[in-house]
């Protein structure tokens, strides 16, 4: 194979590797939108470099561009700018108007957005520019390294770095990069073959022989490739979600908090909306998702039925300071999917909602619980609660699509025995600010009297409020401690605002983590429904371990208007939920109840055993490998040095072998020591006869290294004779255990590599 063809092969492999590295972002974008930009970014710079570099040259060329550096940089920037503007930003960017400002914005801020957005990310150009630019860089730098250096594996490093970046940035997304990693390893092997062939051709052409160690280097390369492949195969599965532990996710450190302080608290709007119940807020077209499969088989008929009874959430408020309920949500830019949260029952079926905003204002976006897929511009999501937010205040005509997975209602027994959650968030959701009115405490006591389990206590509270107090859509607004006390002790009439907040505070009195949700009772009926202000409904939720946040509906029907215009629990609560809740309340539980057994925990014993065995095997293999390298590499170096064809190389090999022996005997020779200085340093440790041999060897190696001539086969033989004498002397004066310890020392193994 000629150098030209070998180089062409190297360029091709670098192109493939850069493409694969850019492809590692497929977990964020999917292959569809990613393939075009990445493929172009992998091909164009390599072609440009190949054209600039020309044919392979016999002499090493410094690592520099052919053109003067500023000119080259300008040319590269212009070429990249042209390609990226045409392929990605031709139709503009959702973040910045204008092609060039959008490119600059994407380049500067794209990576930060990619870190912040939930995965999979939308295929917007300001995000796609990140893998495109990295792929371009990997391809360009890799090709330059191919063209300008004679390194074998170095051209693969940029692609590997980009691959690592891709894996790191997308580790929490569904999918796997194992196949990409395996392809990268295979491509690295091809690169080694191409590069070695090219270097061999150039070396032969320039009349310089090889080093004679090509076979061993190839073996080392293969071993390294196999090791990397094995490591990726072992570690890779552990990085993918769903194997008992979460993989390290750098994105966890990059949550972007958005505090919708400037907008009106939706809870404060409830009374106003109920006072004008006919105003259109938004329209929803609910239908069964076509390709939705989350933890179950899609069932369009059932989903449509569920859609009729699924409330639409607007805001989740989980912090109460005695005056107002606020949200602790931390919103981040939403991608195309919303990741699931742990500690919930599996959800089944999916509901698609096409939402068009009309009279709704603010930044909160209505959606059914719990969004799993999104399609819209400028969406943000709180992953914990699944609440959606708009990056800019909504305007009439704003459209977006949400696919939600409805919550599965557990059967009565599970409900009855469910225990409150105990994590940190739940503790915060139990917090009661000072000043709690006695009336609320009394309501909690009365609602839970005779109820045994936490769910039954919550259900009892729900029924107590629903049966004791009246719904009045014209009741005064407010949910402070004072308002609650007024509601419980004086007016005893209120809207869902008061019912829900009284329930939530009373639940906290009972030790139940609670929050309130502001949303809308979905009217059902036709698939396209208008949601009006009268549909607003506030309901509380309790966090149960292993189940998630369960809604309760303490708001009764409005008696004055007959419940025809405003929503109540009757329109918000599904019949299935009501039936199961009543059944759970009736589950006989002895008092005092024994702590119900925790939800069955899936033990990953086989996985742990597998990981343990694999880890042990890896450790053992590493130890054996280290011993083999530590013991074998000096022997291999010695053999290689002795068998060198050129006498000068043999003399240097004898010197290196002597260095190995000295280091193994604990006589450290600094790298800055000349052969003559080495004799002085080692003199004390090797005795007089050893010193004479070492001095003679130092003279020989000095001549071999620095003289124009003067080394023949006889001198090479003498050098190895001196080496043998020094070794023999070392064996006499240095104990065996010291020599063994010296040979196995890591510094000895690393030092040996430097002599290559």
């Amino acid at each position, binding site marked *: 194979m000629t150098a030209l063809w070998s180089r062409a092969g190297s360029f091709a492999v670098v192109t493939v590797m850069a493409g694969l590295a850019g492809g590692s972002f497929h977990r964020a974008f999917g292959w569809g939108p990613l393939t075009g930009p990445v493929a172009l970014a992998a091909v164009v710079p390599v072609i440009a470099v190949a054209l600039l570099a020309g044919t392979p040259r016999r002499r090493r060329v410094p690592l520099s561009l052919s053109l003067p550096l500023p000119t080259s940089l300008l040319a590269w920037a212009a070429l990249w700018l042209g390609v990226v503007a045409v392929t990605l930003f031709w139709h503009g960017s959702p973040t910045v108007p204008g092609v060039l400002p959008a490119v600059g914005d994407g380049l500067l801020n794209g990576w930060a957005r990619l870190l912040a957005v939930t995965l999979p990310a939308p295929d917007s150009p300001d995000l796609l520019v990140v893998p495109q630019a990295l792929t371009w860089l990997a391809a360009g730098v890799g090709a330059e390294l191919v063209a300008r250096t004679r390194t074998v594996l170095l051209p693969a490093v940029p692609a590997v770095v980009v691959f690592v970046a891709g894996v790191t940035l997308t580790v929490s997304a569904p999918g796997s990069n194992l196949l990409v990693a395996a392809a990268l390893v295979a491509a690295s092997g091809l690169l080694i073959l191409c590069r070695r062939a090219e270097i061999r051709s150039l070396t032969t052409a320039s009349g310089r022989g090889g080093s004679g160690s090509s076979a061993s280097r190839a073996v080392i390369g293969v071993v390294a490739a196999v090791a990397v492949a094995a490591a990726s195969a072992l570690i890779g599965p552990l990085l993918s979600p769903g194997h008992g532990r979460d993989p390290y996710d750098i994105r966890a450190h990059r949550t972007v908090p958005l505090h919708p302080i400037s907008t009106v608290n939706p809870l404060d709007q409830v009374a106003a909306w109920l006072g004008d119940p006919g105003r259109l807020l938004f329209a929803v077209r609910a239908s069964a998702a076509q390709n939705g499969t989350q933890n179950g088989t899609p069932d369009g008929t059932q989903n449509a039925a569920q859609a009729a009874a699924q409330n639409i959430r607007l805001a989740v408020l989980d912090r109460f300071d005695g005056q107002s309920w606020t949200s602790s949500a931390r919103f981040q830019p939403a991608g195309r999917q919303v990741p699931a949260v742990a500690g919930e029952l599996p959800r089944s079926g999916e509901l698609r909602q096409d939402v068009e905003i009309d009279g709704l204002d603010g930044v909160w976006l209505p959606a059914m619980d719990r969004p799993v897929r999104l399609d819209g511009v400028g969406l943000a999501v709180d992953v914990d609660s699944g609440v959606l937010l708009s990056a800019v205040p909504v305007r009439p005509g704003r459209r977006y699509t949400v696919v939600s997975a409805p919550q599965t209602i557990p059967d009565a027994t599970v409900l009855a025995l469910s225990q409150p959650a105990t994590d940190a968030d739940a503790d915060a959701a139990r917090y009661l600010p000072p000043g709690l009115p006695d009336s609320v405490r009394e309501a909690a006591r009365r609602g839970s009297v005779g109820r045994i389990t936490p769910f039954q206590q919550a259900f009892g509270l729900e029924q107590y409020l629903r049966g004791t107090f009246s719904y009045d859509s014209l009741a005064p607004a407010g949910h402070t401690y004072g308002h609650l006390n007024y509601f419980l002790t004086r007016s005893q009439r209120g809207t869902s605002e008061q019912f829900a907040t009284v329930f939530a505070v009373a639940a906290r009195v009972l030790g139940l983590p609670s929050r309130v949700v502001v949303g809308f009772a979905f009217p059902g009926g036709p698939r396209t429904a208008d949601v009006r202000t009268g549909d607003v409904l506030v309901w509380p939720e309790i966090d149960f371990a292993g189940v998630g946040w369960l809604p309760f509906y303490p708001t009764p029907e409005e008696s004055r208007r007959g419940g025809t215009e405003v929503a109540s629990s009757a329109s918000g609560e599904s019949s299935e939920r009501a039936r199961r809740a009543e059944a759970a309340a009736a589950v006989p539980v002895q008092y005092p109840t024994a702590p119900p057994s925790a939800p069955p925990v899936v033990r990953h014993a086989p996985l742990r055993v597998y990981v343990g065995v694999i880890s042990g095997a890896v450790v053992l293999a590493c130890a054996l490998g280290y011993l083999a390298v530590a013991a074998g590499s000096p022997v291999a170096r010695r053999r290689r040095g002795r068998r060198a064809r050129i006498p000068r190389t043999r003399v240097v090999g004898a010197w290196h072998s002597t260095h190995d022996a000295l280091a193994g005997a604990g006589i450290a020779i600094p790298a*800055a020591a*000349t052969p003559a200085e080495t004799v002085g340093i080692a003199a004390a440790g090797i005795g007089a006869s050893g010193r004479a041999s070492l001095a003679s060897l130092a003279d020989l190696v000095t001549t071999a290294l620095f003289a*124009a001539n003067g080394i023949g086969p006889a001198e090479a033989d003498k050098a190895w004779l001196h080496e043998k004498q020094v070794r023999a002397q070392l064996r006499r004066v240095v104990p065996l255990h010291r020599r063994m310890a010296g040979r196995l020392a890591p510094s000895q193994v690393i030092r040996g590599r430097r002599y290559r």
Partner: protein
Amino acid sequence: MPTSGAGPFDFATAFQALVDNVELVVRGKTEAVSLALTCLFAGGHLLIEDVPGLGKTSLARCVAASLDASCHRIQFTPDLLPSDVTGVTVYRQGSGEFAFHPGPVFAHVVVADEVNRASPKTQSALLEVMEEGRVTVDGQPHAVPLPFFVVATQNPVDMDGTYALPEAQLDRFLMRVRMGYPDRQSEVAILRNRRSGMRVEDLSPVLSTDEVLALVAASARTHVADTVHEYVVDVVSATRTLPRLRLGASPRGSIALLRAAQVRAAAAGRTFVTPDDVKALAASVLAHRLLVAPDAELRGYTAEDAVREVLESVPVPRSLAGV
């Protein structure tokens, strides 16, 4: 180990003969003498620095006296003018023409005694002639004879009545040699022989100027391996990145170090340069080109310490070039 062959200009023999001749007067300073002669055969100029009374001027005069060459001595004083060094153009009434009257710098060996006592203007008069081997007066260049060897002595700059040599002029000296105090035995010998011992005037030349030029050319042919070239560059480059140095050595320093190493190798009878030659000469060739950072200087850190630090950190070549 291969050695340089014997012949009419056997370098090692001639070098040793010169050393022996100088040491007839300068006792106990073998290394300083060898360095001075290395500087001569490397085609450079020598700066001898130390406190008064240590034999700086004697060494310079002895080197001059050992060569069958013209030798002028200039005693630098604060009122010395540049024209006192380079020469002047005078009007000759008889011929009615201007004629150049050469200054004392026109000699094979110029001993510039206490060079740092003259004003910077006069010091700079030496710049052109040291670098280019010629003097330009009234726009006319006048070449100095070859070999041209400036041996300057100076007192440490912190002594009274001295002007520090500018960096540009220091860089033009191939070496700076410190004499140092003689050891006890040598000092006793100096006292004992102060009446009967040899004086500079008693020395006989051992080499002619042609022989010196031939030996200079011979030393320049000493083989330097590519790895040694790289080692020299590594050493000099390291001085440019040392945090405690304000200024590292210039490429002129690299050339000087390599050239001096060639002479040392030839003087040792070798036909090739080794890293030992580079290490042995690095302090003398590089130290005066380095500027120590003020904070390091306050802690007693010297340029020689910097060179030592560099030599202890830069790995010597251990593999063949290209292998």
